[in-house]
């Protein structure tokens, strides 16, 4: 695999940051976009744009076809059973809010329990908190250990006959831990508890087969998958989408509207109110094609190699502490440097063109557990190379020099 050639497909890397070559290590936050995706959006607006699913004219037919083509591509990408199981949202956050709202409305009563983990991003906690406030639900946190692992047992011991949902991340956006989803879902099945997966850090990096995984819900954010912002995907088993009430009301999601009653269509239409991010959804088709042309397994392999190289390199750097030591790690390396706050690290790295994220990464529960207010995080994409890690390491040394460590 020629990473240089792949990287050349991303126009952003032709720019300099502070006169330096861009070393982008913030893909867990949002990935960069290949030219094909950018061009597709531009071309769609230039040549094919119209609203979808409403008008009869030729442009509307073309636009609708392009839009629905993305749904088919996603269906195949994650191996969903049917295209009706793919709901477009604005991001993974909205996907979780959709389930928390609709599933909460229908199935959650006072004192019912929802299990999440201490690793969760705020997007997979706050929507359940709303449900706690609104319906008296109880949120239980499965503990993560020092390595950053959440064991199946830590979830198992929280399950009671009040447990109505287990919502866990696929990959931690801080420790990089890949959760034992198969075991968690197997366990949940024996107790007939549905499982929601926050796939933000999973879908861009790991082979996904939702039928094999057998999860009930899986959410993703397309902007982390070399795609446009403003698009997310909610995968849900058809039986759930049939059973759950609509989320938002408006145009496009109705069947028949009368003064005294309204009926709704089947999924996914029922959950897609109003005009969606049409051009972005069309553009996302190119992201899927981009990933598939490389091959998701090749992406996993490449990122694993760079992650391991980074781990090895940073572990040799005495001032650096790596956060978490999971057996299975995604393309994420969070770290701290003795005596230097992560914000200061981020500012100094930025001076070398190295883009990382510093802070709590929307995981305050986890940071409190670890007893550190903030961490620095380097996260990888297909365009990263060992050279990027070398530059990162050099820049870390510069932090130490400035702070006289």
């Amino acid at each position: 695999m020629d990473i240089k050639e792949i990287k050349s497909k991303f126009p952003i890397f032709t720019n300099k940051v502070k006169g330096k070559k861009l070393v982008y290590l913030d893909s867990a936050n949002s990935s960069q976009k290949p030219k094909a995706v950018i061009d597709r959006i531009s071309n769609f607006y230039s040549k094919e744009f119209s609203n979808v699913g409403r008008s009869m004219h030729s442009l509307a037919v073309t636009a609708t076809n392009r839009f629905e083509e993305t749904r088919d591509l996603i269906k195949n990408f994650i191996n969903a059973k049917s295209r009706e199981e793919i709901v477009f949202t604005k991001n993974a956050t909205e996907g979780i809010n959709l389930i928390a709202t609709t599933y909460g409305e229908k199935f959650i009563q006072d004192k019912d329990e929802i299990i999440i983990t201490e690793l969760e991003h705020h997007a997979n906690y706050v929507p359940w908190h709303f449900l706690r406030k609104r319906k008296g639900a109880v949120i239980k946190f499965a503990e993560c250990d020092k390595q950053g692992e959440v064991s199946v047992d830590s979830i198992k011991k929280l399950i009671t006959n009040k447990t109505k949902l287990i919502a866990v991340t696929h990959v931690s956006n801080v420790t990089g831990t890949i959760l034992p989803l198969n075991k968690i879902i197997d366990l949940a099945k024996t107790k007939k508890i549905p499982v929601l997966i926050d796939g933000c850090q999973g879908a861009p990096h790991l082979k996904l087969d939702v039928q094999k995984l057998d999860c009930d819900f899986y959410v993703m954010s397309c902007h982390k998958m070399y795609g446009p912002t403003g698009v997310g995907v909610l995968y849900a088993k058809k039986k759930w989408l049939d059973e759950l009430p609509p989320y938002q009301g408006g145009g496009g999601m109705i069947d028949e509207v009368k003064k005294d009653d309204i009926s709704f269509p089947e999924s996914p239409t029922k959950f897609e109110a109003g005009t969606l991010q049409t051009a972005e959804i069309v553009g996302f088709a190119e992201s899927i094609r981009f990933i598939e042309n490389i091959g998701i397994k090749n992406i996993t392999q490449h990122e694993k190699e760079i992650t391991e190289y980074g781990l090895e390199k940073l572990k040799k750097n005495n001032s650096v502490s790596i956060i978490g030591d999971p057996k299975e790690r995604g393309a994420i390396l969070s770290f701290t440097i003795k005596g230097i706050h992560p914000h200061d690290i981020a500012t100094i790295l930025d001076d070398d063109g190295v883009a990382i994220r510093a802070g709590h990464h929307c995981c305050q529960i986890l940071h409190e557990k670890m007893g550190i207010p903030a961490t620095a995080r380097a996260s990888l994409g297909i365009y990263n190379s060992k050279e990027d890690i070398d530059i990162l390491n050099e820049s870390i040394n510069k932090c130490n020099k400035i702070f006289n460590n």
Partner: protein
Amino acid sequence: MDLKELYKEIILDHGKNPRNKKKCDGFNKDAKGNNPLCGDKVHVFLKLNDEKQVEDISFEGEGCAISIASASIMTEIIKGKDFNVAKKILENFIYMLKVGSKPSINSLTDNENTTIMSLSGVKQFPMRVKCATLAWHTFLHAAEDNKKVVNTEK
């Protein structure tokens, strides 16, 4: 945008050895401040006497070198000042970070001026302005009995 403008010796010193980082004895006012995007936290303690003079000021908290240094420098400069003078220093300080003019407070000694000016480089790093102003906004909340937690994102 030179890193040396940001991480001056004096800032690194205050960041590593912050002054007045404790709960001061006999404080009669206090306030908290958060920078929710970063997780920075500060708690300012204030002893304001009947003449509205800052008899003592201190802080506790966690944050980056810039936020800790700024809090430390603030306590050094404001201690002993009348509240109205302190408020003027604060206004000039924030103006310096956002607009860039030099604070010209007659009541500041040359030494104090040099210390406060050491933070002027923060202006070149817009993402870090919030770090530098957090403690100062929190001081104002404490002095004015504003019970709301300062939030840099509001």
